[in-house]
């Protein structure tokens, strides 16, 4: 008693993520309706009013991300959410955020593509998320939750990471996590925040600040990019996250992330029940990718199966991690419009 009691709520993934943002002190949300994440702006419109933050329903995702740019420039914790086509529209803005070194959180409840695709869960935005996504040499930290609790925790953490590195952070969910309901332990409200001496809030008592990514003087842009490169290298060293499940000494490793990993885990449990020596490696940060940790995990493996809800994107990173491994690498994926069930993954595990 006396301490702040941890609240437990039944929330869907959008709501859970939004509550994580609010616990992290998010003061600004701009968004635009797109299925399967419509609950996000709806929920935020109510919660921002209740918590004294700003909610804006923008005229487009392009505008949303640029509003987020303004909020970040002013020194406030800020975010937007959308789904795949909307996230594509935001890529220019995300590139500017990274170029101007502004912290922001972007939640992508990804759906089937390409084009308009459909509104079912998909992981086809892996390349876009982990390779920068927009123009220029930059990366965004990408967190891939597999439950409502995790999207809550990841969103909360994303704000700290964004501030720490002054770089946009992507929380990569999907249509499944956006719409499923689970109990979530709500994090207590963050009370202490890092100072932002670079923010634009009027130059009273200090020299003017300016935020820019345009450097026309010869040599200056390259120097700026080398500075960003050093920052990205630091992130690669410090911010790798992953989870392994029965990986130790397993000769058969399945690599999968997000909700797909959760489906895969059920198939693995069944296979293990039959005595198959199999484990699951789940990258939690997709960038930085846990190359070294995966390499360690597959040291004794003979077979690797990569399972994704796409035509094979993360498998490229698995191959990089497995460069010195003699294990054979297989892939099972369902592209936009298809969601695997545990039975079919179990069958794939047995087939390989």
């Amino acid at each position, binding site marked *: 008693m006396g301490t702040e009691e941890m609240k437990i709520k039944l929330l869907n993934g959008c709501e859970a993520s939004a509550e994580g943002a609010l616990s992290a002190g998010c003061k600004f949300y701009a968004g635009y309706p797109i299925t399967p994440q419509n609950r996000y702006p709806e929920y935020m419109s109510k919660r921002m009013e209740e918590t004294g933050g700003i909610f804006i329903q923008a005229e487009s995702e392009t505008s949303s991300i640029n509003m987020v*740019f303004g909020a970040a420039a002013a020194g406030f914790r800020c975010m937007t959410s959308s789904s795949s086509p909307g996230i594509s529209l935001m890529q220019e803005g995300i590139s500017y955020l990274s170029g101007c070194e502004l912290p922001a959180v972007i939640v992508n409840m990804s759906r089937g593509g390409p084009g308009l695709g459909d509104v079912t869960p998909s992981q086809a935005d892996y390349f876009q998320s982990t390779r920068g996504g927009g123009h220029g040499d930059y990366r965004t930290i990408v967190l891939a939750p597999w439950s409502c609790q995790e999207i809550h925790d990841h969103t909360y953490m994303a704000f700290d990471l964004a501030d720490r590195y002054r770089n946009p952070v992507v929380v990569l969910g999907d249509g499944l996590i956006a719409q499923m309901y689970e109990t979530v332990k709500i994090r207590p409200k963050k009370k202490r925040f890092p100072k932002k001496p670079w923010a634009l809030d009027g130059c009273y008592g200090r020299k003017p600040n300016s935020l820019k990514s345009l450097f026309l003087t010869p040599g200056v842009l390259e120097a700026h990019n080398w500075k960003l490169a050093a920052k990205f290298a630091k992130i690669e060293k410090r911010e790798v996250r992953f989870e392994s499940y029965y990986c130790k000494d397993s000769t058969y490793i399945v690599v999968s992330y997000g909700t797909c990993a959760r489906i895969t885990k059920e198939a693995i449990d069944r296979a293990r029940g039959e005595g198959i020596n199999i484990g699951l490696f789940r990258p939690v940060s997709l960038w930085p990718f846990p190359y070294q940790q995966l390499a360690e995990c597959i040291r004794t493996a003979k077979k690797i199966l990569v399972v994704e809800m796409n035509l094979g994107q993360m498998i490229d990173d698995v191959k990089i991690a497995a460069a010195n491994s003699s294990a054979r690498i297989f892939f099972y994926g369902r592209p936009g419009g298809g969601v695997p069930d545990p039975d079919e993954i179990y069958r794939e595990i047995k087939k390989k």
Partner: protein
Amino acid sequence: MKTIYQRPESLTSATSIYCPGCGHGIVQKLIAEVIDELELRTRTIGVAPVGCAVLSYDYFNFDVTEAAHGRAPAVATAIKRLLPNRIVFTYQGDGDLAAIGTAEIIHAATRGENFSVFFVNNAVYGMTKGQMAPTTLPGQKTTTTIYGRKAETHGFPLKICELLSSIDGVIYLERTTTSDIPGIMATKKAIKRAFSLQIENKGLSLVEILTSCPTNWKKSPIESMKWIKEVMEKYYPVKVFKEPSVAKI
């Protein structure tokens, strides 16, 4: 000795890289003078999007951020909502505001965002070296309309003040010119009006300023001034389009 004139505190001592006869220098100086006169420098945040306008962050001596092409009104919206006691303005060219950023300005206007917009209309894309702008005049030659702008193939110029005047969230709209000294003085007055209305939380104000781009017009600075007066001002009438209906006591 008495000081008759000096550089406004709101301008840095940086040497401008704008072309000789360019209107940006005039307008930026007027904005800086008004900010000084209203003593707003230490609580002003400027938003400078892509185009020649973006360079203004090197010339304004207060907080300024870059914005992506056309997106300054979205950026300014967030800054002003989060910092309602600060003075926020966007400084946008015609390609930026009237082509790629048309949605952003219209929706900032419909939301009645309480910031000021300075819209620099020189009827051409400046930084990219003279392509047709949405405000390029009929018959005007540019690098993408080498025989002159034709309505059949290139459409008609976009009249921003006329377009925005139907939007309820806009409180003040005026088009001014920099073709002569009275025009420049009237421009300064309009800039001051826009900032004053923002201080009073009245809603979105926009001043469209007709300026010169001698380099891309392939005219001398003097010929350019004449062209603004004789051609641009005919097509884009210099006047107040909208102002608060209730006079302030």
